[in-house]
């Protein structure tokens, strides 16, 4: 495990997360590398004791995590752009506590980005952009978020150390 991050850096990392979630689809810089960005995002927002599920190419975690199956996780950390079905198994919340719907953080790495048009809270009109996700993964996400207010919320760290958010409120259409 690497040394703990400086407290002001954790503030900066979370502010990037906050801005990313407020303006879905727009990448927000966190750090110079994907690894550093992922570490800061996780350390600033989640606890070592957070029930966590892992998927994809095992990403490096900044703590000794409490690993649980996806169905019990509060946080899913995915190495890559595809969770191999873990996303589908995450809690989605219920009408009393929709906030129990989990968060999935992808360390997306290099790859072909999906071309999409986004609408919803945080977006003025519509936003034409790209997302660093597999198309199948996006389909799983859409299905998990089909029954508002239940759903899951996604964050993706790209290989430039920027974070992009896809909250359950965002409607996604593919585009050419």
């Amino acid at each position, binding site marked *: 495990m690497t040394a703990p991050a400086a*407290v*002001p850096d*954790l*503030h*900066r990392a*979370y*502010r990037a*997360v*906050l*801005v990313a*979630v*407020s*303006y879905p689809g727009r990448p927000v810089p966190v750090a110079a590398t994907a690894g550093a960005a992922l570490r800061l995002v996780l350390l*600033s*927002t*989640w*606890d070592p004791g957070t029930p966590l599920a892992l998927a994809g190419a095992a990403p490096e975690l900044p703590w000794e995590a409490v690993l649980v199956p996806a169905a019990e996780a509060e946080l899913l950390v995915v190495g890559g752009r595809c969770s191999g079905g873990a996303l589908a198994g995450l809690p989605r919340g219920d*009408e*009393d506590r*929709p*906030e129990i*719907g989990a*968060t999935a953080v992808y360390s997306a790495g290099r790859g072909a980005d999906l071309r999409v048009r986004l609408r*919803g*809270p*945080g*977006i*003025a009109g519509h936003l034409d952009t790209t997302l660093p996700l597999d198309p199948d993964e996006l389909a799983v996400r859409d299905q998990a978020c089909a029954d*508002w*207010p239940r*759903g899951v*919320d996604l964050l993706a760290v790209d290989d430039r150390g920027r974070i992009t958010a896809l*909250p*359950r*409120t965002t409607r996604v259409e593919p585009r050419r």
Partner: protein
Amino acid sequence: MSAALDGLLAGGAAGRRGYNHAYLDEAAKREVRRTLLKALCLPGHQIPFASREMPVARGWGSGGLQITLATVVPEDTVKVIDQGDDESLNALGIRDLVTRTTGAAATTETPAATLIQTRHRIPEDGLAEGVVLVFQVPIADPLRIVDARPSVTRRMHAEGDYAGVWLYLYEDMVHHDHASFTHSHPVEVEGGYVMSPSPIPRHDVARLDGAPHISLFGAGREATLYAVPPYTRVRPLAFEDRPFETERFGGPCVRCGSTGSFLVESGGEDGAPPRLVCSDTDWCRRRRERAR
């Protein structure tokens, strides 16, 4: 609060016996941060959180303060207002605590501010993208007027059952021909949750709809947070044939001549009627300076 803070901070810089950067312990910050993240994904939905003990009393902005301390960065320029006034004693104390425990800069000028904590007003200036506006909320649940019991109102929100508050408005129309809400007029947020905009006047409620900035709401005493993302639909509850009305004033601000801002009464000694002035003191002052 400043004298007490002097004594405590004199005990040592952060890292020794003094206070942590941004006062709150790291676990408390992370809990607020996780809650805010979900709040932005569920616009208008009230989410409980473990509200920490703060050096301001419950009811005096402890919730807003926890949001500010969890989200502030050292590069921020922080503005704190109470009733639109930067010089209110409570606002001064909060601004002092935030800037002294984080190194962030302070300002009274809205255009320079990147993070604003407010009690009961939205600044008259439009706020840009990326600006974080933190509202202090005394009573989080707009359904409190329907039922005092949180167990009952939580169920109503879960089921989207807002008949109670619509009935309240209907009875207003029958008896008074207009809504009896003065401030805190309930709003429906995109996605369907009905939310209290905090005790801002109706003049400000109308300005939440589709705003480019980020709105975060903290109720420390009630241990609840909620949020409205930018560019989100926020509509005050109103009947189609009885449109929502904002406040009307009998004249312009006597200091800057504005007719489009929220005014409050000032003065009125020796039998003279009180004059109307802008509640947003910074906005008013800049208008006067531009006019010279």
